């Protein structure tokens, strides 16, 4: 009876779902700074700490730079550390992002994706994450509040695995997900800790054996240390898959590293993540009714990039439309993800026509018919080349 009760879904925003995950993971240290639209994550976590549901040190810092610094230091002492941010906060953390991965600190951070200044916009796009993609973090996109809860739990298993020891970002759309409510099954402390028990950090800072970390490294060694990150990132790929499958066995939900939705018989695919993927799932049946046999290729694991699954899903389609919600100004394709996909297409000698679309910048509204229009564009792309990035929905 008790078991049944805890497994009933409760209404949570994605921000709250993440806070519940942090609670159930029994995180030891939370350091954070308020920023819209992340704030309610750590607000909820601070409530858990205050009312005794979570025994953690909650550090109020004076900036995001300090928030991540404190979380990194905590992780290196062997504590389970959590932080959350968005937008300018992630941008301000940028140098600490590289320090987290370089020091191999298994920090987990949730990111409510938001556009960057200037001009100031508090609304959603994905410029923050795509500007942080080369910082050596494992990056995962989620498309529902449930997946956010589940993925934060998976993230600690991945980050803390002795063969990985990399920081992990779990990213979702600001407002569209952070502030909307969905049913979420909250598994509770006992079963979550059984799935993701705390592990001894192998290089833990130990007062009995004092060492200096972050010290200067000459050209003779620096490269090898960075190459270790390359190997760790490569090794993370099967680990993410394995953790997700085990999660499925434990809780009945798993997501894969990349998801292909309505791909059976599809001749074209749209590659999208987070809320756009969720919206497309509800709209693709309409697109098929209108004759556009288009599937959704949902990007869940972004770093490391699941190339094998990508090849498997795209080797038989005629076109692939990649939706970017950030801009790589002046790049060959001006959508950063599309640019990478062009590289993957060349590397794997894939035959599809690539269509690069930028949309939703600063949360420019995408109506249902706009997503259908993207499906039509993907469909047209089977027989037509789009050499330039399409800036969808912009007024020129």
């Amino acid at each position: 009876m008790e078991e049944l009760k805890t497994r009933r879904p409760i209404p949570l925003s994605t921000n709250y779902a993440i806070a519940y995950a942090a609670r159930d993971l029994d995180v030891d240290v939370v350091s954070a700074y308020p920023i819209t639209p992340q704030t309610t994550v750590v607000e909820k976590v601070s409530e858990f700490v205050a009312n005794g549901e979570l025994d953690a040190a909650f550090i109020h810092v004076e900036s995001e730079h300090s928030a991540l610094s404190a979380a990194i230091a905590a992780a290196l002492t062997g504590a389970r550390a959590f932080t959350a941010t968005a937008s300018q906060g992630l941008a301000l953390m940028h140098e600490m992002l590289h320090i987290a991965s370089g020091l191999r600190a298994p920090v987990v951070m949730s990111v409510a994706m938001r556009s960057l200044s200037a001009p100031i916009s508090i609304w959603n796009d994905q410029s923050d994450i795509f500007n942080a993609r080369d910082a050596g973090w494992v990056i995962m996109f989620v498309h529902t509040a449930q997946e956010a809860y589940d993925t934060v739990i998976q993230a600690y298993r991945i980050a803390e695995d002795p063969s990985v020891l990399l920081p992990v970002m779990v990213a979702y759309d600001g407002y569209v997900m952070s502030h909307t409510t969905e049913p979420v099954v909250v598994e509770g402390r006992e079963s979550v800790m059984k799935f993701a028990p705390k592990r001894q950090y192998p290089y833990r800072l130990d007062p009995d054996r004092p060492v200096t970390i972050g010290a200067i490294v000459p050209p003779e060694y620096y490269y090898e240390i960075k190459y270790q990150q390359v190997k760790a990132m490569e090794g993370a790929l099967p680990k993410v898959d394995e953790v997700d499958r085990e999660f499925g066995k434990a809780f009945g939900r798993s997501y894969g590293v990349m998801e292909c939705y309505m791909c059976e018989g599809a001749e074209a695919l749209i590659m999208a993540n987070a809320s756009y993927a969720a919206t497309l799932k509800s709209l693709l049946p309409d697109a098929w009714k209108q004759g556009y046999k288009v599937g959704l290729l949902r990007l869940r694991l972004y770093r490391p990039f699941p190339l094998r699954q990508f090849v498997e899903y795209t080797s038989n389609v005629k076109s692939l439309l990649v939706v970017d919600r950030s801009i790589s100004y002046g790049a060959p394709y001006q959508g950063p993800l599309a640019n990478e996909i062009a590289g993957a297409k060349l590397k794997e000698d894939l035959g599809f026509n690539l269509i690069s679309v930028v949309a939703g910048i600063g949360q420019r509204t995408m109506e249902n018919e706009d997503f259908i229009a993207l499906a039509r564009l993907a469909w047209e792309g089977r027989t037509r080349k789009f050499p330039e990035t399409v800036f969808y929905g912009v007024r020129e």
Partner: protein
Amino acid sequence: MARNWMDYKTDAWVQWCPACGNFGILTALQRALAELDLPNEKVSIVSGIGCSSRIPYYIKTSNVHTLHGRPIPVAQGIKLANPDQVVIVASGDGDLLGIGAGHFVAIGRRNIDIKVILHDNAVYGLTKGQAAPTLPLWFKTKALGQPNIQSAVNPLLLAFASGYTFIARAYAYHIDQLKEMIEAAIRHKGTSLIDVLQPCPTYNDIMTKEWYEKRIYYLDKEDPSWNPNIEKPEDVKKIPKIVEKMMEWEPRIPLGVFYRNTMVEPLDVRIEKIMPGYLQNPPARRSIDIGGRALTNPFVAFKDRIVTT
């Protein structure tokens, strides 16, 4: 014809909570600009991030809304290029004393002629009431799960230690007195701080209008001989008293001008010494072209370094 404060209003709808202290600061600032009859384009207001930092939208001058914690560096850029410009930083205690505290200190060392108006409500109002750097130790405002375990920073002492040469404290609901202090700060040449105590009726349920009004008093009303001016070497004898007043908080909170030191060279005078002509011909007024042609022709200047293939 002299300007009146309506000349500094914009059409933008003011988005603050009812009874927010920001309204008082906005009105006092507009009135001070009118009183000094400053041309709109000769004033720049630079803000950071927070409720208070919307103020540039409501004042018809040349303004910048910058990033969280960063209005001071932007203001310094404006002032260095345009030494004649009246440059005002208006931002919150979270912005200026938390994330941007490094800049708050650095500006004092330079004694650059910028007026910092600190909207001091002790909470992060925009993100719903977290404890900000001026919230006293053990205060538990409504958004906090537990009492604040960090001590408040004293903005007046920090400014004093950093080298600000005009330091005042005002109360946002006393618009006339605040207006006087802003005028005095603008007339002073050097880095100036006005710490404006400001109730946040939405999130600070402790430091309310009633809380403040039980405690505040004006230095010059209490002691008619109060003189904050340091104008000659022997005036430094006043400093222990000034610092003592800066440290006073409970049970009574002094308001007024604490410190005005006219013996420290402002930055523009220092620059003039190492860069003669800076004040007559500051960067913003230097010609960079004549009739659309650059003053310097790189092909001539670097003639002997051009590689031809």
